[in-house]
């Protein structure tokens, strides 16, 4: 982030006209950050619609098509019928890829990592699905309501041993994570705050698969939390956490890391935190301001985030208009390090540079090869058909098309020349050679960035 810009300036609305007009690169950047990948048709539509319409379309909840609803409900019912978490994962991936509200799904994934809960301990498809529904309901809505809901969520209570929290033996696990992981971050509470908060959450149990308040196990005495004393219950502890200055800053940091830049500076965090507090934790206006801001479209924010495995896999499927094999995508994502519904720790996925290692780079390259040239992971739209429809009259034209589509940038001349040379000399028919080019582009380091 440039030192010369103030945080307030950074959140000023972006004026495309002041930057040479609304470009394809701008449209692609906005689409990539608010959904997973983008097809050529979506990019062209966003180009012609302009910033405001595209932004409105993304942050406003759209009605789902009948076809989507029928398939989504069928997949969800199957997950419940089989009791298989793999089926539930496939259901959610289907939603991420096909929903008319992909930003909701992206935010839901961010919150899923934020409120990390793993089926490995919960061991219940209905409970994990219920938590996912709760997250989705408030994904782009009220964080206040989301946090309150999560405090009573059955899967969360099982995950953090909330059910073992008794009046005479308070379990601090849940109280600690509410402060450290869900609202304030490390360093903004004391150990005494945690102990007192644990007393407030006592008696919050699960009975017959539902949240149950057990008054006999609840410590109804006075507690002192954040310097305030009262006969607090769990809901009031949540309100106290939300009232702390650290809370919106913590959320701002998470949102900026997920959608703008990998290492946001303190000024930008403060600026966004002010907006979060101003809107009382309502995410829709915050996201609208953020996605329409100078900082979002600044050069420093372009291709500044390392793709998570979900972003990599689903983004590639969408951009290449593939019919994905979601059943194969589930174990693939697990091997790449992002197994939805089974985050590795209570902290979720740290992301960023931690997505990249020598092993994961090899796996990402293998994914690119398999998707471009195989059929196990899905069948991409035939490159030969696309090249014919686009009337690409040379190998260079084909290379530039896919370079733009997959990297959102103009490839350097020598890179184009080398890829075109490969396409001209490689064996196989034109479709096979084009797939080879796609594979090579997806293996480039630039493809790992969004």
């Amino acid at each position: 982030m440039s030192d010369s810009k103030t945080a307030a300036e950074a959140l000023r609305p972006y004026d495309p006209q002041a930057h040479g007009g609304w470009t394809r690169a701008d449209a692609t950047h906005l689409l990539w950050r608010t959904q997973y990948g983008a097809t050529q048709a979506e990019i062209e539509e966003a180009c012609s619609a302009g910033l405001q319409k595209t932004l409105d379309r993304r942050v406003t909840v759209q009605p789902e098509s009948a076809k989507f609803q029928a398939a989504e409900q069928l997949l969800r019912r199957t997950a419940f019928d089989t009791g298989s978490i793999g089926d539930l994962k496939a259901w959610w991936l289907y939603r991420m890829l096909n929903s008319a509200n992909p930003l909701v799904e992206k935010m839901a994934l961010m919150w899923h990592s934020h409120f990390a809960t793993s089926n490995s301990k919960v061991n219940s498809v209905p409970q994990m699905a219920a938590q996912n529904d709760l997250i989705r309901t408030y994904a782009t809505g009220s964080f206040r309501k989301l946090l309150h809901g999560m405090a009573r969520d059955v899967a969360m209570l099982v995950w953090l041993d909330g059910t073992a929290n008794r009046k005479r033996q308070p379990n601090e696990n849940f109280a600690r994570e509410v402060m450290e992981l869900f609202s304030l971050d490390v360093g903004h509470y004391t150990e005494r705050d945690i102990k007192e908060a644990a007393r407030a959450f006592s008696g919050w149990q699960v009975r017959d698969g539902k949240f149950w308040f057990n008054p006999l196990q609840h410590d109804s005495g006075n507690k002192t939390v954040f310097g305030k004393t009262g006969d607090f219950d769990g809901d009031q502890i949540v309100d106290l956490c939300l009232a702390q200055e650290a809370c919106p800053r913590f959320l701002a940091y998470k949102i900026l890391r997920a959608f703008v830049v990998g290492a946001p500076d303190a000024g930008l965090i403060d600026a966004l935190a002010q907006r979060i507090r101003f809107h009382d934790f309502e995410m829709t206006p915050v996201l609208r301001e953020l996605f329409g801001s100078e900082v979002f479209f600044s050069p420093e924010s372009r291709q500044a985030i390392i793709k998570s495995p979900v972003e990599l896999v689903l983004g590639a499927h969408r951009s290449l208009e593939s019919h994905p094999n979601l059943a194969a995508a589930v174990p693939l994502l697990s091997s790449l390090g992002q197994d939805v519904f089974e985050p590795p720790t209570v902290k979720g996925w740290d992301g960023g540079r931690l997505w990249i290692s020598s092993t994961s780079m090899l796996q990402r390259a293998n994914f690119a090869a398999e998707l471009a040239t195989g059929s196990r992971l899905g069948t991409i739209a035939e490159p030969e058909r696309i090249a014919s429809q686009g009337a690409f009259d040379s190998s260079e034209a084909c290379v530039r098309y896919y370079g733009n589509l997959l990297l959102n940038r103009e490839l350097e001349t020598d890179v184009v020349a080398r890829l075109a040379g490969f396409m001209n000399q490689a064996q196989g028919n034109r479709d096979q050679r084009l797939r080879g080019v796609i594979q090579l582009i997806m293996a480039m380091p630039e493809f790992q960035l969004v």
Partner: protein
Amino acid sequence: MNDRVRPHWRTVTVSFSLGCLFLGFLLCQAPAATFAAEPAAGKSPSLAASVPSGAVGYAEISHMGDLLKRIQESSYLQTALSSPQFQALQKQPQYKQGDAVRRIVETQLGMNLWKLFEELLHDRVAVALYPKAGAPAGGPAADVVAIVRGIDPKALAQLRERIDPLLTLAQDQLSPADPIEGAPANTTVISFKGQVLVGLGESWIIAASTRDLLTKAVGLLAGKGQGTLADDGPFRMMTEQMGKEHLVRAFINTEFLTKAKGSRLTPEKLDNPVLSMFLGGVIELAAGSPYAGLALDVEEDRFLLTTGIAGDSRKLDEAHRVFFSDPDGPGTAAIPQLPSIIAGFTFHLDIANWYKQREKLLEARLLPAFDQFETGIANLLPGKDVGEDVMPLIGKSLTFVAAPQDYSHIDGTPGVKLPGFAVIIDLAKPDEGGDLFQMFFQTFSAIVNLGAAQQKNQPWVMTSETFKDVQIAYGRYLKRPAGEQLPLVYNFMPASARLGNKFIICSSLGTCRQLIESLKQPETGGQRPNRNLNFEFHPGALADILQANKEVFTARAIQQGQEARQAEGEFATSLQLLRFFDSFRLSSRVLSEGVQVQFEGSWK
């Protein structure tokens, strides 16, 4: 053994028998004209009388032309060709290439391939393999002669006319050969690369890999010459035991192959205990059989594929007699006829003696696993020996069934509906055996209950009821499950019962009740033919279960990238194809002179 005669017996046996079996199974999949068991008046004799003696392998197809016509016109084929699966196959590059070749060939021949094969297979077709004397390393494994007889002379003439231009193009590889002495007039002989000789008569074609074979076959076909396969001892034995008129029949001279190899063809000990239990006896008997035969018959609404070997099971050693029932008796227990039964499997095995003889029957590396098994059982039965105290309690029949269940044990249905499963164990000592298996059942239920809580499932409470004077022990759920999309685990509510000398273990109480009703019925239909092993499968009942779980299959297809409509279409077609068939049966029969394994099926 003559070192000059050294056929590659393994290649010959495996490839030939696999080819015959594959051909047999392929031809099973179609409705057909009616064929009588004995040749009708006017039917031509078998080509075994036209093939020189000494064949190691032989296959014959009889009167296939009408069958092919029926296949072409069948509703089953039309359904398969209009299915979404076939339409997807048609888009594959390999299919397109194959179809292009087909159209080129048909254009050149002036007839479609169905018609071509109807003409060629109108009467009989036979192939025979002979050991190749002095074969160089890496050379062909055997000599071959193939005969197509009874082709319509006009059709053959048209075919020759159409093929002539292609033969001209290949003239560097094809050349006229010397005429065959004694051959009928107008017989043409062509040599292909000097390796295959083809004789073309007015209504027959003979191809052979040596001139000697071609000369003999031409002579025998014309009614001259002596020494035919039909006269060979093992082939005659097969004909006596399996009959001579079949749509397809195949023969392997295992007596010759055994001598050529210098040792038995089948292993003395097996490396798979399950294979041993089901087929150990047949494999042992096959080692001494002079032939292995196969026969396929197709009628209007059924087919029967039979494989046979010769030998008296009663003369085997003690270790191998355990596999066989008395040929004069019914053999294994009958499969209980439950309503809408999906499948049943029952087999005869003197398991107590099989267990005692395991060192003679199984490879040594498998034996430590049995020691571990005994140690495990000993934890439940201290002071007892599995071989001496447990196995002798078990009788000689074991039965498995799968049938739809009624879900009377829950208020609602699971989201995924599974059939009920059951095992019926014949008990040699009903009282002791019954107690032992009841103890195993209780132990199993307790172990499962420990896991149930971790899985957030209802545990079982062991209880019992009396049904038709039979005491049933079963585990009911602590809280009766209710709802329409219950978890998969609620398909199961294990039940056990002892009925006379049979111990029943079922996955659900409803299935147990159905079994008790069925087993209490006396067997009808007179004495059954002997069956040593019997597997029955009813595709229609399976289709019903699959239909009940249609949503799961459609969801799986969507997960794999299909559109919902396409997935539903493919699923519906698959069920339609399944429902075309009535039933299938795979069984083995012990005869006084041999063993036959039969695969039969019927359709609507």
